[in-house]
């Protein structure tokens, strides 16, 4: 897991021409390096970006994808068991998340939406921390600076502004890290995303707009959102874009690396449209069978991202029993850790609410805290330690 040397590849020497505005993406076809059948096909422009991916690394990409699918199913079960209030499944989007997240360096910064739990895993976020918000135990899950990933943004598309702002900060610092922001097809219709792209283009900021086009904005199909390819929207902002097979982990990685190199070397922003599919419901409170044709689901099941890598490993003779056992064991262990971390998570205490607002003492807040603690104490329950009223 974690960001690894895979992210260091594709440097300027080995990579193809990546000068800014080299291609707009308009009219170009979907970039694919692995067919749904698991066959590696060559691509004149993008092969170079994943040339040095070793067999072992391919196996570890496979492992990450299997593990995040397991995290997803386990969390869905935990919701059905009353342990989580809500969960947004990422089923089907594993390649988009792993392929892009594994292309990043530790000092790059991620601004995601709420479905990027696979990205969070790749960034090394503690498993229980991923669930905290969904269990209603905290207002946000983790310290963003320990993993260089902001906590999930619920407001659709708002994180793109945060990413662009952060990227402008990188420019001010003169650093060579990049900001990556994740959002969906629906978000591209939001004002925030459009504003972020205007600023990113104007300032040529090192930000990557990573759009997972999963075809459904809750119940709204993507074709109603955009009459052109989502990737082609970027051209209007003067941002180079690429449409990539989002169920192909290598293609996603290649496109992300190209974008990262462009950003690191002053080439400005890139828009990546990863064409994938949300196999599950929007959240555990949604029933997609009410608005979605089951045949569509079948079509996409045939393009499953994990089956595809598995097929490639098999063709290369790498899918050994040992690898499969190792991956299964890892997934089991992660699922166990996730469940235990969720169930044994301590409930927040009533007075905790005052701890997370200011980093320095604040007299106004101290006063409120004093009032609230005395109010809790009036129930004959010192400090409200067992108070139910304030517990949640």
């Amino acid at each position: 897991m974690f960001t690894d040397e895979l992210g260091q590849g594709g440097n300027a020497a080995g990579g193809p021409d990546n000068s800014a505005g080299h291609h707009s993406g308009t009219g170009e076809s979907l970039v694919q390096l692995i067919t749904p059948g698991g066959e590696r096909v060559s691509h004149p422009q993008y092969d170079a970006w994943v040339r040095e991916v070793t067999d072992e690394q391919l196996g570890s990409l496979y492992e990450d994808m299997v593990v995040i699918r397991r995290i997803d199913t386990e969390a869905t079960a935990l919701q059905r068991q009353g342990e989580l209030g809500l969960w947004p499944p990422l089923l089907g989007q594993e390649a988009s998340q792993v392929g892009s997240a594994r292309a990043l360096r530790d000092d790059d910064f991620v601004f995601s939406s709420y479905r990027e739990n696979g990205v969070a895993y790749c960034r090394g976020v503690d498993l229980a921390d991923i669930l905290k918000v969904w269990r209603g135990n905290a207002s946000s899950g983790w310290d963003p600076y320990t993993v260089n990933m902001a906590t999930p943004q619920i407001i659709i598309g708002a994180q793109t502004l945060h990413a662009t702002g952060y990227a402008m900060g990188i420019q001010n610092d003169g650093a060579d890290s990049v900001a990556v922001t994740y959002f969906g097809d629906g978000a591209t219709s939001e004002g925030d995303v459009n504003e972020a792209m205007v600023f990113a283009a104007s300032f040529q900021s090192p930000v990557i707009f990573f759009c997972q086009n999963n075809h459904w904005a809750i119940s709204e199909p993507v074709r109603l959102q955009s009459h052109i390819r989502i990737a082609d929207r970027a051209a209007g902002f003067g941002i180079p874009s690429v449409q990539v097979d989002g169920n192909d982990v290598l293609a996603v990685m290649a496109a992300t690396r190209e974008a990262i190199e462009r950003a690191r070397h002053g080439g400005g922003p890139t828009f990546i449209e990863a064409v994938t599919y949300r196999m599950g419901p929007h959240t555990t409170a949604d029933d997609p069978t009410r608005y979605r044709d089951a045949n569509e689901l079948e079509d996409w099941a045939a393009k499953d991202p994990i089956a595809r890598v598995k097929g490639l490993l098999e063709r290369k003779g790498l899918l050994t029993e040992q690898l499969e056992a190792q991956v299964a064991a890892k997934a089991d262990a992660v699922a166990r850790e996730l469940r235990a971390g969720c169930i044994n998570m301590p409930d927040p205490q009533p007075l905790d609410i005052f701890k997370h607002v200011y980093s320095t003492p604040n007299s106004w807040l101290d006063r409120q805290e004093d009032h609230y603690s005395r109010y809790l104490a009036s129930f004959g329950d010192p400090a409200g330690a067992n108070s139910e009223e304030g517990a949640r």
Partner: protein
Amino acid sequence: MIKEFRLPDLGEGLTESEILSWKVAVGDTVALNQVIAEVETAKAVVELPSPFAGVITALHEQPGTVVEVGKPIVSFEVEGDDGGPSTGGPAPAGTGKREPNLVGYGAVVESSGRPARRARAFAAPVAEPVETTAPAAPVVEPVETRATAAPVVEPVETRATAERPRSTPPVRKLAKDLGVELMAVTGTGAGGLITRDDVRNFVGGGDLPAAARALAGAGEGTRTAGERETRTPIKGVRKLTAAAMVSSAFTAPHATEFLTVDVTPTMELLARLKASRAFEGFKLTPLTLVAKALLIALRRQPSLNSRWDEASQEIVQFNYVNLGIAAATPRGLTVPNIKDADRLSLTELSTALTALTETARAGKTSPAELSGGTISITNIGVFGIDAGTPILNPGEAAILAMGAVRKMPWEYKDEVALRQVMTLSLSFDHRLVDGEQGSRFLADIGAILADPGMVLAMV
């Protein structure tokens, strides 16, 4: 140790769900995350994965029951702490404590009898009046004023302090639907909260004073509304069926044609086929042959196998046939379809029909089987009906209703004979199909059933 699983809030802020079925029985050993039940919420039908690995010791609710969130539904015998939470597990029932494993505001146990607002340690005179007046809602006095006076302003004057008793929005809705005045109902829930049962008991009569009951019914003579009519919430399959029928009936202009056919030759053929070795073990019925006749006739009139795509302003001509069969299931009408039915031989068609009806009756039809149909058959003959106007399955251009096969006096070789006769009713979408194609199609089906040998001239 015994662990209980309480019904969680499966959506966002749901207060109850209906248990559709149990997938396990008492005594079964289940694994963690094994599906144990199917539950329908206001939002979706979902499967419940087991939160523990262990043995089922009790199922507390029957299928078909609507259960409040937070109520125990199943108990497990769990070995040690394996597979379950060691400390955060569900507490025993009735403690009135909030369950640490339940999240969402639907999780508070409503019927625990414990007031939501706790008494503070010091004297709290402010809270007193609320606590005392609420349950003792003045019942009699407002009744009299209401019963006599039309403009109902008086109750405010007579008892200015009378507060509407506490209840939840769904209960208020229920009360409104049943015509119950909540002021007259005595709440038995926590802190005098009025529950659904209180409202239902009130309507059912219960042991309330007559004056109070007078408020409940709008009519004078018969107030026991619960006995004379039953109100069932519109939901689930019934709701979907209604929506589909309304949208079909009011978007596709239906035209219906009828044809009565002497199907004696088909019935004789059916008997011969059943007796033949090639069809041994297959379940052949008139429906099988009608379906086959429809598929053969459809090749000559493909426009009946099409769809009107309003959104893209296109007519979709299907080059395959997914044949829908209307099925009455325990949960209502469903129309599962047989994929690529046009490519099936008679035996394959028979097998597919048998499987489809069995799956539908068991209520296990998958969404994939329910969508993507291109044309449908409904067999009203099994109910002894001759003809009717079938309503199109939304998105399809035609539907054929087959009537009962009856022995009737019929013209046969210029004489009147007792023949086996069936009426076919065909509805088609007149936007897609003209009278000519519809008529030819129906005539072809009739011709095949009247003389199966006609197939030779058609294929």
